[in-house]
């Protein structure tokens, strides 16, 4: 049935214009030929730019205006949310205003009394309800008006952009309320500028422009089309080729294919940093206009006076290829890049050989960094694995060969993936090419790769602050330090002279090959038939350069030099012990006279932030230090090689780059070692363990590079309240063989000795075993192992989940990485882009029960960079924490570098205990209880669990050590000891025939302590949408899950209830009751955070007094499942 029917509506206004030469009247049509109908229960959105006639339209529906032509038919009571609070009298109290306005609306006194409480509660005014509303704040006023308008029980609700109802929390509640009305089957007509809201709520959308309906349909179709057209008309252009549609709208490109948008709201836009305003500027901020002279090309120019920047985009669209070139002009441009925001339905990306799945969206507001990826041919490909959508695969990138593309996930509310293409100059050519299928995309990439001539390749190596870029096109190999080029000209150079003529790498043919850890180059001079093979790699602190040279075939060579050319800012040089200053003038490649021509070290430094450089002379060659000619303006540090028949050894040097700008000579003199000297190393294949006896650290190396950081690998022992850290113990190493060593740590006058065994395997693995020898009876309270690694890892995964390394909150520079199930026996860390970090798997003997693994991230400190930590500890019950004299094995673990052994082989044998009834299953595992109904999980997150708060820290039952005491068909008893609190609990669980679950909790305190809160919780599935606290209130859960537990505006209810109920369409209704004897408990219903995404039903006791040692029986709860009858 139609609730609203508008038939050819026309509405005009007469508007008075007062000008100097008199008054004139003009008629303006606010609405023209408007036809539409709204079905009962439908939610219709009206979107339009300001002044398009939206409000007039609403007023006509509400009867506040009469159309000049046409017919309006409205069935049912209309309530409007237009000018909130317009009917209020400021002298009357809130309550009086509610009554008066409700009466005017036509509600009977009886109805008003019923509604009153609801209105007051929703408005949240407290005692202010009885104060005249002239004393109200704007927010209170609006809240009251909103809650009144919405509770009038209208059949049709008209909403005109009313989301500005106070703070975010209350506006969220308002939106939820509207959603609830939608569910109740009210007809809603919604006018708003918030497209998210339209997209979420409306069934149908009308796009109004200048009083006319120009488009109507589903939100998914209309909204993108609308957004495309919002903006200054001069800066809008629509391109269409078959199904591919591209809209340029004031500095943003939006793409769609066959009516399906590919890009999100963000579209494609340029972003750069403006140092003057110290902020990011987007091309959307510029003023755009088409400057093309003819109609064939589309050239848009964007400028902004405030930013002193100008941009020109030239856009063209072929059948399935969109190409655009961008030119940046202006001084204040730093880090320019292009952001492509595309829909989350694209879940795979492919670059070069790698094809990977996007990580799930984890964070609400952050841009979740998915790594920087080198694209050597053409860009990054995206495709969707979902079959249902007809989303085409596409490739996005710059047209040049080598480029970097960063990927992000952003915002769960509007889930969007972002590909960011970095510009390295102020001019770039971009393209997006669509493919109907993933297969075609891969084929295209393969083709592109083949097309790429080896000589044109671009290779890059990176390690820490050091970067090498080899370009076959430019024939240069450049070294960068902290993003700044150190070298000049062609960088690493080779040159030789024949017949008074100099030849260099420029005249050679280049072939470059990018290897995992090095760049291989082949230089060939066809005129001389001379071939050189180079291999360049990065190691800690420098560059290794090896060259295979055969000069035998060249006759009449007069001179032959290899080395590097550095910037003219380098002023001083050193050769062996001789120091000097480069001449001021550029002396046209004139050798500087050196005392010790065959010194082992040849170096240079500069003031400022350029690093010091030292080259090692490995072959007793001649050192050459010279200035270039005036044109090149660089300094050269080279070695003169034997002219003829140079084949014996090849050429090899190390170019050391010094972090801090120490004068290179000093380092040479002092012969500072690169590695700590007092290092006992155990190694096999690429893996090395360095036991650093000076720093008392156990370092890990992979391919000669250290991957550990800060504390490296260490054990923590807390023995009878006395903590032992390995760095305070006495260390002794016994090297058994090259790949095996034993480290003994002992403490003076204490009968506990830790024994570590390291064994490196040829398969790039490292076995670690820690044993403990105890001389007298001790209690080991805490026993954990931590491994801190350099921050080169992008993601982690365990047998059951995966995640990234973005910490939400830091405490003392340590941020926890949350895991849903930390009771795992193996974890794998993946390094995204970096070739310097091997994928690392850390696994423990799976038979070892109750071992948990936690992850954390540390912020960079003064001496260390940021790091990633793995912490693992064994949860042991109180009983098992006492150790009699003897020898114990604390840990047996294995690390795998590079290759991953499938994690499934480390799947834990879980000791889940189960109680079951037909259809219902209840299992307990590690302090978490889970409920299944007909195979579907009812619980979510932590399920049934308890929790204590002590000094502001929450201790969940999932972090306690649990033991089964008793189990039979109906009953289950579990005992758990908290790891960091002197508290234990005994849970008695009974499953009754009538599907009631009785959960009794008995708490035992071993030492006097104060607890701030004791909670007994049940986390249930987010499919439960409605809640009730019988006798108190009822309502619906918000659909918003916060990013962090600190702010909880999404608490549905709290109060002294003893029964809490949740309802769902898909799952059986569930109630969580507490026994009346367990008094003083507060019932609570709220949403958990985004991580657990569940509804929390809780009974908590806050402000618990000091607890004396002893047993407390403090909770008895009943969970009841009420299956739907059908």
């Amino acid at each position, binding site marked *: 049935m139609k609730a609203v029917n508008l038939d050819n509506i026309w509405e005009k*206004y*007469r508007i008075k214009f007062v000008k100097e030469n008199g008054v004139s009247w003009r008629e303006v049509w606010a609405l023209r030929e408007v036809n539409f109908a709204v079905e009962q229960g439908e939610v219709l959105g009206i979107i339009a730019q300001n002044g398009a006639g939206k409000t007039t339209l609403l007023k006509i529906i*509400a*009867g*506040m*205006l*009469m159309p*000049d032509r046409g017919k309006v038919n409205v069935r049912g009571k*209309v*309530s*409007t949310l*237009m*000018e909130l609070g*317009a*009917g209020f*009298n400021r*002298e*009357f109290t809130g309550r009086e205003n509610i009554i*008066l*306005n409700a*009466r*005017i*609306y*036509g509600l009977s006194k009886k109805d008003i009394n019923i509604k009153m409480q609801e209105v007051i509660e929703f408005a949240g005014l407290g005692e202010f309800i009885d104060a005249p509303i002239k004393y109200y704040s704007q927010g209170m006023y609006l809240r009251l008006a909103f809650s009144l*308008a919405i509770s009038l029980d209208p059949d049709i609700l008209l909403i005109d952009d009313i989301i500005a109802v106070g703070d975010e929390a209350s506006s969220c509640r308002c939106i939820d309320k509207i959603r609830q009305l939608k569910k109740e089957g009210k007809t809603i007509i919604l006018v708003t500028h918030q497209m998210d809201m339209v997209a979420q709520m409306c069934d149908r959308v009308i796009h109004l422009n200048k009083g006319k309906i120009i488009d109507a349909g589903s939100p998914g179709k209309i909204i993108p089309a609308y957004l495309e057209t919002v903006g200054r008309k001069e800066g809008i252009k629509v391109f269409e080729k078959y199904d591919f549609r591209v809209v340029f709208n004031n500095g943003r490109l939006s793409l769609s294919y066959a009516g399906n948008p590919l890009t999100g709201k963000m579209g494609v836009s340029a972003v750069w940093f403006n140092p003057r305003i110290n902020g990011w500027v987007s091309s959307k901020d510029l003023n755009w206009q088409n400057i093309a002279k003819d109609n064939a090309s589309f050239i848009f120019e964007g400028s902004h006076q405030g930013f002193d920047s100008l941009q020109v985009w030239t856009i063209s669209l072929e059948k399935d290829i969109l190409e655009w070139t961008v030119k940046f002009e202006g001084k204040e441009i730093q880090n320019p890049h292009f952001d492509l925001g595309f829909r989350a339905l694209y879940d795979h990306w492919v670059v070069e050989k790698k094809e990977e799945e996007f990580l799930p969206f984890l964070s609400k507001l952050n841009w979740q960094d998915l790594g920087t990826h080198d694209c050597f041919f053409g860009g990054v490909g995206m495709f969707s694995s979902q079959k249902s959508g007809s989303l085409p695969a596409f490739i996005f990138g710059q047209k040049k060969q080598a480029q970097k593309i960063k990927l992000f996930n952003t915002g769960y509310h509007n889930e969007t993936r972002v590909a960011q293409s970095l510009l390295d100059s102020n001019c770039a050519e971009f393209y997006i090419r669509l493919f109907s299928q993933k297969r075609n995309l891969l084929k295209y990439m393969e083709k592109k790769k083949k097309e790429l001539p080896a000589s044109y390749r671009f290779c890059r190596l990176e390690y820490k602050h050091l970067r090498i870029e080899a370009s076959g096109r430019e024939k240069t190999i450049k070294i960068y330090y902290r993003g700044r080029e150190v070298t000049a000209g062609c960088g690493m150079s080779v040159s030789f002279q024949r017949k008074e003529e100099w030849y260099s790498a420029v005249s050679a043919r280049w072939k470059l090959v990018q290897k995992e850890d090095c760049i291989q180059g082949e230089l060939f001079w066809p005129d001389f038939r001379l071939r050189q093979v180079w291999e360049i790699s990065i190691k800690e602190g420098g560059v290794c350069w090896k060259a295979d040279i055969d000069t035998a075939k060249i006759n009449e060579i007069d001179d032959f030099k290899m080395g590097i050319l550095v910037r003219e800012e380098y002023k001083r040089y050193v050769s062996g012990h001789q120091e000097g200053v480069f001449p001021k003038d550029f002396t046209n490649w004139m050798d500087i006279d050196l005392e010790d021509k065959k010194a082992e070290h040849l170096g240079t430094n500069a003031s400022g932030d350029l690093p010091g450089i030292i080259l090692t002379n490995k072959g007793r060659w001649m050192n050459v230090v010279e200035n270039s000619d005036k044109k090149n303006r660089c300094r050269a540090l080279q070695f003169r090689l034997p002219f003829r028949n140079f084949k014996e050894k090849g050429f090899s040097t190390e170019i050391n780059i010094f972090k801090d700008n120490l004068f290179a000579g000093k380092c040479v003199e002092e012969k500072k070692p690169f590695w700590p000297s007092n290092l006992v190393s155990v190694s096999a294949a690429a893996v090395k363990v360095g036991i650093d006896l000076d720093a008392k650290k156990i370092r890990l190396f992979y391919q000669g590079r250290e991957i550990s950081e800060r504390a490296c690998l260490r054990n923590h022992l807390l023995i009878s309240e006395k903590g032992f850290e390995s760095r305070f113990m006495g260390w002794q190493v016994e090297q058994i063989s090259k790949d095996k060593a034993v480290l003994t740590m002992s403490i003076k006058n204490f009968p506990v000795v830790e024994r570590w065994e390291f064994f490196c395997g040829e398969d790039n693995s490292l076995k670690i075993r820690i044993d403990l020898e105890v001389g007298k009876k001790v209690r080991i309270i805490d026993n954990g192992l931590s491994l801190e690694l350099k921050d080169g890892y992008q993601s982690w995964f365990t047998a059951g989940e995966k995640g990234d390394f973005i910490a939400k909150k830091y405490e003392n520079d340590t941020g926890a990485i949350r895991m849903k199930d930390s009771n795992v026996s193996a974890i794998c860390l993946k390094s995204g882009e970096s070739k310097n970090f091997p994928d690392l798997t850390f696994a423990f003997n799976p038979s070892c029960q109750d071992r948990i693994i936690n992850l954390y991230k540390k912020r960079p400190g003064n001496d260390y960079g940021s790091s990633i930590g793995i912490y693992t500890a064994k949860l042991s019950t109180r009983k098992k924490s006492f150790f009699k004299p003897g020898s114990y094995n604390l840990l047996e673990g294995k690390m795998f570098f590079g290759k991953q052994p499938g994690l499934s082989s480390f799947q834990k044998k879980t000791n889940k205990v189960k109680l079951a009834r037909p259809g219902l299953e209840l299992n307990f595992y590690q302090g978490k209880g889970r409920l299944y109904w007909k195979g579907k999980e009812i619980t979510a997150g932590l399920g049934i669990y308890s929790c204590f708060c002590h000094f502001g820290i929450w201790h969940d039952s999932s972090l306690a050590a649990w033991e089964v005491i008793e189990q039979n068909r109906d009953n289950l008893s579990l005992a758990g000891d908290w790891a960091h609190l002197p508290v234990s609990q005994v849970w008695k669980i009974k499953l009754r025939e009538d599907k009631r679950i009785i959960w009794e909790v008995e708490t035992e305190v071993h030492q006097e302590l104060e607890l701030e809160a004791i909670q007994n919780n049940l986390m249930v599935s987010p499919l439960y949408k409605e809640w009730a606290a019988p006798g108190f209130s009822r309502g619906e859960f918000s659909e918003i899950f916060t990013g962090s537990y600190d702010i909880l505006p999404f608490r549905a209810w709290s109060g002294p209830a003893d029964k809490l109920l949740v309802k769902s369409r898909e799952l059986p209704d569930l109630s969580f009751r507490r026994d009346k004897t367990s008094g003083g408990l507060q019932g609570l219903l709220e949403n958990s955070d985004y991580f657990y995404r569940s509804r929390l039903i809780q009974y908590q006791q806050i402000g618990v007094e000091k607890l004396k040692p002893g047993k407390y029986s403090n909770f008895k709860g009943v969970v009841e499942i009420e299956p739907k009858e059908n």
Partner: protein
Amino acid sequence: MIINRIKKLFYQRDILAEMVFKQFRASYSGAMLGVWWAIIIPCILAVCINIIFTTVFKINIENFTFFVLSGILPWLFFSAAVVEATNSFLTDAAMFRQKMLPLEFVPFKSVLSNFLSFLIGIGFLLPFFIISNIQIIKVLPALIFVFIFNLIFILGLSLIFAVINVYSRDIIHFLSVGLMVWFWITPVFYSLNMVPYPYRWISILNPMTYYVTSYRSILFYGKLPSLPVAVTGIVLALIFIIAGNLFLIKKEPSLLKQL
């Protein structure tokens, strides 16, 4: 059409009543003496006029205070209602932004809330009128008819004024002087037969003359109003209410745009 309209008004009479009470309460809210002002104002005026006319002008009417009161109470109601109603579309336009109501309700509620004050004033002073002239009791029921037709007349008139005022604000300025002139040409503190004949047509053309005379003959003289006066009063009331409504219906679409 008019019948439909009346039906609609009748269905929503509750709302009108609510609006009237709201307006009534709002007009006295914040005042310490509250509703007492409905009595105080006519009394003060009556006392002033009494003093001026008995001591300065030496008018010789017996019981002059009650003579003036019987005329000034209806006049005060009339003038206050007309001024308030004339402005009502402008001051209460906000009402239409929440919920669509019949347009008539806006001037009507202004008139009716003033009518309430008027009733309170009369109700309070009625015992005194009766004490001064016991004959009144006999004709008291007729007062109700006077109330009704006087009210209908004012409703009709204020509708017209209120609608005009939306288009041109001149009417409200005119009223500030016009009501004063109107006051003097209405037999409030003199009686109709005191006006010499060549000028009496002014009083006869003045509709308020009939209502004030009716009130006075009941409240002061204790007699029923003469038949010509009563009939004229009834006819005038019907003419104005019909004219007012037709005018509003004609102007409604464009009036809504102006609000």
